[in-house]
């Protein structure tokens, strides 16, 4: 327990910062949530009791109860992330070291945050959609479309180094992403189409649209201003991390400082009651889908900028599934209602760390998917109260039986 407590603040230096404004926004509730994201239960308890001081009316007893509940929610993902990082340290001794080179921060942890940036963005948008009880499968296509449009525009510029031209490209791509999100929201809220179907349409059609934009080719560009978005540095930090921090700060402000979060959670928690309380859920849902697509659009810019090309076929492929996974690992229920931005960031970081681990530990490429699935299964099981009840409170007969039955299953594919 103590080792992870010490490490994550360092490892989480970058990702924790973006989480800070969000958790700072709501004085009482969310601070308690942010505690465990920084690591272990002990810190969670102290963090929340520390912050209970401003809320004078609060009684210590129920503060502790609240911390226990919210602590549980992010405790296990936090533990898993810590273990993953620990595993990396064992295989790669210098894993946690961060050094300054040419005025830039370098290190595996920085890389995790940098390469994880698009996923975090998409997952943050997805969090709000899922909180309303919906889902957005089209984010991967939006990633591709956004990258394709901006690269197409830049490739048509006389001078690809022209900052003005690149800004126009970015504006166009984000504008189109917004329109696509509005389309999704309109199908869901305006016509009552089930979210999974409504966004499936754009998931499939969007790939076609992206290829239409790129004319079926991979558009390659050579624009250093555009390269900054996904591959550049600013103030010693990778630019992508700064973008993520900004988006997170804005999202946290809108949802926790303003009342957007309450209304979203209310609509997702009980749509009928929300309507009777006078909430305009239609506009709210459209907004949320538009926001999600906008996040995906920014992620698309990052991904295409990082490789200086747009691939309508493969850019952002399956990112919707990783994003949904990140949201669920972060403790937001697919049923809707309560959501946790901090949890989502944690979930996205777990997925990205996993990918990094697979490479650094040297797991054979043909088993990477299996390995990934295994870790995700463990996280999901740890999140399940029924599972915890069975394993941790009744150490009687079951544990002996289940590994035995699990073993042959593993052996068969191997």
């Amino acid at each position: 327990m103590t080792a992870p407590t010490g490490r994550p603040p360092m490892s989480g230096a970058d990702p924790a910062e973006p989480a800070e404004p969000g958790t700072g926004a709501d004085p009482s509730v969310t601070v308690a949530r942010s505690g465990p994201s920084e690591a272990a239960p002990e810190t969670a308890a102290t963090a929340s009791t520390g912050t209970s001081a401003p809320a004078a009316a609060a009684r210590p007893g129920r503060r502790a109860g609240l911390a226990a509940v919210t602590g549980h929610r992010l405790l296990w993902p936090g533990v898993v992330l810590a273990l993953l990082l620990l595993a990396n340290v064992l295989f790669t001794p210098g894993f946690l070291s961060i050094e300054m080179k040419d005025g830039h921060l370098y290190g595996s942890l920085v890389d995790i945050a940098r390469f994880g940036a698009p996923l975090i963005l998409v997952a943050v948008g997805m969090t709000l959609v899922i909180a309303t009880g919906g889902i957005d499968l089209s984010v991967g296509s939006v990633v591709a479309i956004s990258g394709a449009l901006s690269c197409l525009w830049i490739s048509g510029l006389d001078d690809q180094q022209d900052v003005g031209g690149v800004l126009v490209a970015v504006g166009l791509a984000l504008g189109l992403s917004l329109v696509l999100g509005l389309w999704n929201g309109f199908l869901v809220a305006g016509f009552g189409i089930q979210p999974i179907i409504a966004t499936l349409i754009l998931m499939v059609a969007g790939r076609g649209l992206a290829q239409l934009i790129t004319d079926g080719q991979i558009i390659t560009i050579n624009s250093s201003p555009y390269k900054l978005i996904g591959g550049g540095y600013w103030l010693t930090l990778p630019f992508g991390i700064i973008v993520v921090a900004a988006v997170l700060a804005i999202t946290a402000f809108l949802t926790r400082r303003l009342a957007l979060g309450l209304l979203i959670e209310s609509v997702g928690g009980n749509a009928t009651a929300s309507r009777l309380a006078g909430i305009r859920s239609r506009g709210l849902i459209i907004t949320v889908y538009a926001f999600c697509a906008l996040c995906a659009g920014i992620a698309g810019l990052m991904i295409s900028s990082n490789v200086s090309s747009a691939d309508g076929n493969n850019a952002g492929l399956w990112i919707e599934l990783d994003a949904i996974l990140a949201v669920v690992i972060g403790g937001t229920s697919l049923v809707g209602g309560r959501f946790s931005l901090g949890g989502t960031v944690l979930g996205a970081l777990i997925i990205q760390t996993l990918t990094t681990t697979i490479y650094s530990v040297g797991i054979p490429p043909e088993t990477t998917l299996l390995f990934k699935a295994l870790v995700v299964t463990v996280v999901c099981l740890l999140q399940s109260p029924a599972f915890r009840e069975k394993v941790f409170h009744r150490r009687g007969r079951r544990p002996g039986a289940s590994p035995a039955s699990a073993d042959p299953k593993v052996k068969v594919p191997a």
Partner: protein
Amino acid sequence: MATPVPILRMSGICKEFPGVRALSDVDFRLMPGEVHALMGENGAGKSTLIKVLTGVYDIDAGEITLDGAKVAFANPLQAQQAGISTVYQEVNLCANLSVAENIFIGREPRRLGRIRWREMRRRATALLDRLDLAIDVTAPLSAYSLAVQQMVAIARAVDISARVLVLDEPTSSLDAGEVEQLFRVMRRLKDEGIAILFVSHFLDQIYEIADRMTILRNGRLVGEYLTSELGQVELVGKMIGKELEDLTELDEKPKELEAVERSQPFVEARSLGRSGSVEPFTLTIHEGEVVGLAGLLGSGRTEVARLLFGADHATTGEVAVGGTPVALRTPRAATARGIAFCSENRRAEGLIPDLTVRENIVLALQAARGWSRPIPRRRQDELVDKYIQALRISPANPDQLVKNLSGGNQQKVLLARWLIVEPRLLILDEPTRGIDVGAKAEIQRLVASLADGGMAVLFISAELEEVLRLSHKVGVLRDRRLVAELPNDDDLTTGVLMETIASGGRT
């Protein structure tokens, strides 16, 4: 009319839930070849008795005998195998499967593991013929009206086990013609010797179809009566729990209706109605006036409230608020005009269970302000603390999840949500149901003081005493029609109200 040997006998049935005695020492018997109505107001124990009978709940005390043999069902399947089938208000069938598949699902005629489709269709058609129902058994169930679906459910139940049939509010969403069709089927089954237990909130239907009735009140048996020997007024009296003679003695302070009527009308509904939900009604609610709505469950009380709140769209008539005609298309439009509505169904339509007490209380006010104008935290604390204290919400913890509160406290949270928006018309649908006596009195006092402060209140309650104590005038509903509007003067007693409910305003 019925043979003297009951096929089913339940005696001394007790059932307790945490904190509630749902049934205490209830006896019930059912004869073959009779339609037996189970009567009682909401919470009287009808559903519990049916669930005990069909094996959903086990009993704490008492015994059930079927055909003279003692039985104890662990689940509905066992009850079904023993010969007791239930058809609920919501049809429990698969709408996407064909009629024949629905009737035989799980017990398809087979040969060598293959389903014999032709045989299945033949038997389904024969079965439905028995009920005088000529429909295409290969069509999906969803192609037919709810009434037909219900009859398919009955056909299935009868085919599985044809001794005792429980019909739990089968008619609540059927129109008159469909009810007639259902009754034809019920009579036919009765003639075949099947015992039918029937639950309905429509008195006319009870008197049309039932041979005998058992009345429950507050989990206790009131008595068993022949329908032909118990008048409607007496029936209502027994259900609500006061003999007519006692009721007339209740001293009620007459409200000064004239004074209230002189103030501005706030809401005027003219021929407002919604087909299939509530017949057109005309009702005026003045500022500072408490209008009570009385009627049995399912009489259209809630439907009136929903129309006035814009939760349902009216198909006829118009509403004027403060003298100007308005279209109340959404609850939001209604709240913007100062109308608030506390639903009787607080779990499904009121609270957001996963949010805290504080969030639930500020929700309506926040919704009215929009997402971009949050209520400052200090103001939230002020409002929430004020109403937690005023309504004595317990535990007095604004950060408690509302799903962890008891029913009465949940009701208070809902009330607080609407009180902080300071509405001009507050619609309360069964605000005191399921809450303890002390809280009930608090809410009644609150309603009276709000009205004194000029707020208009539409007060819906199944408890006539409560309606009388608070209201300036009382609207009486029966079978989805506003049958009378009575000023609450010296002459108005619960007895008069009951008579009006029972007679439907016809004298």
